[in-house]
């Protein structure tokens, strides 16, 4: 089996350059590629276009890249919980393109699956539909939306094997599988990297063909945004 293993984040991110379009997995802070984000900070690449459902919080996740002014444009569905983001947006330093969450997920899926465009009802009749082709099917109006692709995709999985196969845990799956398929180069960081053959072929969430580089990440903080508990 083809071996996709690289030593660490540094090796995994070789080739990342200014002005690239990146996809970063995660929903809120759940399932984000923490190690790759740290390496992006270290590299200091700038003018990035980041496609990610959210933009992190002030001092974690993509928020860290915003603080260092590495991001020129965010493509997201929801960018709350981030004061620095708001400041840059209002000052014009940062551009933002807001996309309905399902449309975002499907446009990324389309990018990976070779579908240049599709029709969705989301956003028809709203400002999201302005300038877009719309069409009626079975008496309902739909917008045509195009695929999204990235120069690099950064995803985070629970387990992975040397062949690049990935298994996600819980709702940390979210956008990661589609982004893995939509990146020209996909970097997967995993909590546990195992030899090919240890994962059940039947239980793979992302087949290794989509992953070009895989490494075992370290020091996962896995910060929780809303710790809500009940008493037993």
């Amino acid at each position: 089996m083809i071996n996709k293993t690289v030593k660490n984040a540094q090796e995994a991110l070789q080739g990342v350059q200014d002005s690239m379009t990146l996809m970063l997995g995660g929903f809120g802070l759940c399932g984000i590629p923490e190690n790759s984000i740290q390496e992006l900070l270290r590299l200091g690449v700038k003018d990035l276009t980041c496609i990610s459902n959210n933009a992190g919080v002030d001092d974690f996740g993509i928020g860290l890249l915003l603080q260092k002014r590495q991001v020129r444009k965010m493509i997201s569905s929801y960018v709350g919980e981030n004061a620095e983001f708001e400041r840059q947006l209002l000052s014009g330093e940062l551009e933002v393109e807001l996309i309905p969450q399902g449309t975002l997920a499907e446009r990324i899926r389309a990018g990976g699956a070779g579908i240049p465009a599709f029709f969705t009802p989301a956003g028809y009749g709203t400002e999201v539909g302005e300038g877009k082709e719309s069409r009626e099917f079975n008496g309902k109006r739909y917008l045509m939306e195009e695929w999204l692709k990235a120069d690099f995709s950064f995803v985070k999985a629970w387990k992975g094997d040397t062949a690049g196969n990935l298994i996600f845990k819980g709702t940390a799956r979210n956008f990661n599988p589609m982004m893995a398929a939509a990146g020209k180069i996909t970097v997967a960081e995993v909590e546990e990297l195992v030899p090919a053959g240890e994962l059940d072929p039947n239980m793979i969430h992302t087949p290794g063909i989509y992953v070009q580089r895989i490494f075992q990440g370290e020091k996962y903080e896995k910060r929780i945004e809303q710790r809500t508990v009940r008493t037993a």
Partner: protein
Amino acid sequence: MGLDKNQIAKRIAKEVKNGMYVNLGIGIPTLVANYIPEGVEVVLQSENGLLGMGPFPTEDKVDADLINAGKQTITTLPGSSIFSSAESFGMIRGEHVDLTILGAMEVSEQGDIANWKIPGKMVKGMGGAMDLVASAKNIIVAMQHTARDGSSKLLKECTLPITGLKCIKKIVTDLAVLEVTEDGFKLLERAPGVTVEDIQKATEGRLIVEGDIPEVQI
């Protein structure tokens, strides 16, 4: 006078029928889960990729890898399933979710909804709201009948940027339960202590009042 948030949630819970898959928005809709009657089996969908959302975890069961769309830590239930965001919105777009309950800033008498953007204010994004309102077979809005300045939120036309057109079927406010019909807001129930005249005054859009309007039973 009028219903409080929990009472609005409790009233909406009566709309939730056995066997339904339900998506609950953030805010009052989330409270609905607390009032689903005994014996009514429903499955809650969280659009970040979970069917069968359980209660908040006890302290020892908190898992950073298990959150809902409001980013709160949650639990699974026996029979839950987890999937990607593409699958999740396929489920929503494909009309597999039976009922969506969400908040709104404005609803028009045609059933248009505005709930994602206030011009001049920081825009946080629509999240999954546009997908949900464009696709759900049945949408109930939970909201206050009027804004803080007393102006109506049930309008002839929405003044704020639209989230979706002609999609809202029912509205439960602090003052009333209303159905969106071809002719306007049809008054179904009034909150205890609230008169039809109170509701009329608080409703800018066309209000249809036919016969006696019963009090909300919760």
